[in-house]
């Protein structure tokens, strides 16, 4: 179980953090030696990892652009990590200068970093909260001040739900969020799966058990359950690179990305 929200989180820099490891995969230097050590080890076991992360990040960008194109101007990015580039608010504000974005993460360092980067941007907010406490996220004053939940919003849970194990009821958390969404809202989701590379997944999971956020890989069918109550938009739940690729994006062996992506609409 995770700590109740009233107990202050500790900042333990001696353990790798999923957010900073991810930053390293994406070529960033927002990371510490512990993170890099773990990332290098992971890459040596599974050289595709940086490419997978890029595919994930590319999906995130395409999904935001797609939704912005459909008139969505409010984004709730849960498990936002360390904003590297092509962040949600940049992509969204490119399409709608007034677009509003709230970044939520459970990693205190990622949150502090996001705050430093976003500074006083009125249209964005950064919230330190845990997806597993869906109510806390939805009731957060900053979330409420920035987003109007009675209007459609996009909820992004991109590459984050595989950090929530069954016992913490990720399906329940997503369902509770869903129930609070106005019609026309969307769920943007990507999720690691061991269906593409069952061989590599196990050792990878093993590595992540060292972080405060161990991994739970899920099958495509299980991942599809997160979309209960949503209607998947085309092309449905597919390998990361196959979700509405840009014209020139060549995707060889999309299954090697071992992650599924999809966007659902709440009717």
């Amino acid at each position: 179980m995770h700590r109740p929200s009233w107990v202050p989180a500790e900042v333990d820099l001696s353990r790798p953090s999923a957010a900073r490891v991810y930053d390293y995969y994406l070529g960033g230097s927002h990371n510490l030696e512990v993170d890099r050590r773990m990332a290098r080890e992971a890459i040596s076991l599974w050289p595709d990892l940086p490419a997978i992360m890029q595919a994930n990040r590319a999906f995130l960008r395409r999904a935001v652009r797609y939704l912005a194109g459909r008139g969505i101007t409010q984004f709730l990015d849960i498990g936002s990590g360390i904003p590297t580039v092509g962040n949600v608010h940049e992509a969204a504000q490119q399409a709608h200068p007034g677009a509003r974005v709230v970044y939520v993460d459970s990693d205190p360092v990622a949150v502090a970093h996001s705050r430093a980067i976003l500074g006083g941007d009125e249209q964005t907010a950064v919230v330190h909260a845990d997806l597993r406490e869906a109510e806390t996220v939805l009731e957060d004053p900053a979330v409420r001040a920035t987003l109007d939940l009675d209007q459609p919003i996009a909820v992004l849970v991109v590459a984050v739900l595989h950090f929530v194990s069954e016992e913490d009821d990720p399906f329940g958390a997503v369902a509770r969020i869903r129930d609070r969404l106005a019609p026309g809202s969307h769920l943007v989701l990507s999720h690691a799966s061991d269906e593409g590379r069952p061989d590599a997944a196990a050792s990878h999971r093993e590595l992540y058990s060292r972080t405060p956020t161990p991994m739970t890989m899920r099958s495509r069918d299980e991942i599809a359950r997160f979309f209960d109550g949503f209607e998947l938009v085309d092309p449905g739940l597919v390998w990361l690179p196959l979700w509405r690729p840009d014209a020139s994006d060549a995707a060889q062996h999309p299954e090697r990305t071992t992650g599924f992506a999809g966007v659902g609409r709440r009717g």
Partner: protein
Amino acid sequence: MAGRRDGGDRADAAVQPDPVGALTARWAAAVAGTSYVPLPPDEVAELLRGLLHRLLAAVDEPPLRQASVGKQVGAALVDAHFTNPQSLSQTLCVLLDGRPAAGAAGGRGEPSGGGEVLPDPAPPDRRWNALVATVAEGFSAALQERALCEQEEILAAAAAAREQASEALHVSQERFRAVFEGATIGIGIGDLEGRILDVNPALMRLLGHPIEEFRRRSVQEFMHPADVEHVWRLYGELIRGERDHFRLEKQFLKSDGESVWTDLTVSLLRDGDGRPRYQLALIHDVTTLRHLRRQLEFEAQHDALTGLPNRRTFLAHLDAVFGQASPGARAGLCYLDLDGFKAVNDTLGHEVGDQLLVAVAQRLVSVVRDRGLSVARLGGDEFVVLVPGTSDSGQLVALAEEVLAAVAQPVQLGGRRVEITASVGVVERSIADIDPAELLRAADMTLYWAKADGRSQWALFEPERNAREITRYRLSSALPAALAGEDLRVHYQPLRRLADGRLHGVEALVRWEHPRMGLLGPGSFVGLAEESGMIVPLGRHVLRAACRQAFSWFGAGRSGPFVSVNLATRQLRDEHLVDDVRIALADSGLHPQQLQLEITESAVIGTDPLTGHTLDALAGMGVRLAIDDFGTGYSNLAYLRRLPLAELKLDGSFLRGLRSVDAADPVDVQLVGSIVSLAHLLGLTVTAEGVETQAQVTILRELDCDAGQGTYLGRPADPADLGRLLDPV
């Protein structure tokens, strides 16, 4: 728009050569996928085209200027997130292939690249290569710069996060401190040796010790002389880690020597690994609460008006006496209520009534107190004294008499002299024979007997009388159901003519086939039915059944045997009787003269006009009327003349002296003879009841008695025995 171009595009390129576009495309293709953060392809092409133009424009500038542009281009790549070393190597590969032949500058291109690149790279393009080298320089510098910045950022973020966390921790500690200090509940923390580490001000106030005093003492020193052993056993279990908390009420000694009652909760605090570390005590003063609770308890147990124990307490007390009694022990109750208390309330008002109850309560207390007994008020004007450990009822009777005397003393209420008496039911039993509820019921029943005896009386419980009354009560309450069901039967007993033994008539006798008590005769329940009024429907039931049965035996006819049905006094007073008879006859088809109704002497003595009318109406219909059990009542012969009678049924008691022909009592013979003659004089037939011997038959026949009824002539029987009934004896 910019895609990879290969040889197939050559023809188009030749028509419209675009060397810059081609190089851009090759460059884009080369770096594609080397960006960690993928950009849309069109954005990449756009960027690279711009960079290429800047390079081409700078290639012929002076070296310093050229170097600065080259570095900027390298830095721009990093800015666009081409931070992968591969991005640089790919870039160099493409650019070092040669400068495109666009603008003023010449360039070198790869031969297969198409006609837009100068075919012969005669002298190496030093200027271009030097420019490209500065791109590499700019790239590396920017990358390093960026890495340093990001490192700084992340360290700053980590520091900020830590600061935030410690601030939050601080806030939460402060919050805890504030709760600790400000709590109204006493809180103490100790270690597992029992050393007290900290206490809050509320606890200091509660026990009146300063903090130093607490620190000096150990938990065990807070033992109170009144502590039950249990308290410290729980404490031991907690300290040993066998339980995580306990809660109980415990007294503490205050600094001033007084004791204070507290609600104490002690919890075991464990460290992160689950090892017991500290104990935490929460203590609050419940002295007033206990006081209040005791008061509430008192109020729940006592009657508000008189202050005597109430019914609940009495019952609990009674249960306790029964529960704790040794075998063979006895106990008794004096159960009393005031005679005519309702009248006092009604005439003098409730206030006076209440005052009277209070006065009576005081007197009762003064009577029983010396005996070490207590009196309870059960409600209204009912009081009860429980006497445990009695030896016989004498003791209780004496008490009852004393109680009656005490109550009978006039009371002075607000200048008014009020006189009241009580009745007492006394029960005294062996506890083994009875349970508390039965004892109380018995007392209640006995009180009822005492009341029936008149004012200011006591009555002593008698088990047989009680059993009788209970049976009566049970029968009476079961009667309606029996009537509705099939449990009531009608049996018939023959009345035979003495002259020839032929059938004179049959008497209908009701029987109750009781599921538990067996077949009951009319004597056991007709009286009850009369009391409860059930006799009217019961009588109607018998009447109808008898008429139907008689018709099936005798058919319709003016003469011949009749069926004789008893009428209770109460039925005679029922205005519907005549109609009931008419309907019973009509429904059955029986002729009125085939029906005889038996009434008792007492029912017709001093007949009221209504009864007279009823009898006249019945006789007018042709129904025979008979006097039942003649000779047991007043036997006032005068009424025989007045009433429209057809028959006299002589009570069986007259036949006792006639059991044998030789030893017949001459007075009885004379008496019966006179009655028969008198009856005949009045035109009535006579049936003698209780005929048990042939001698009686012989004598009665000699005395000219018309008919007889009794065991000798035929017992009452089920109608199925029709055949034998009709046979002459």
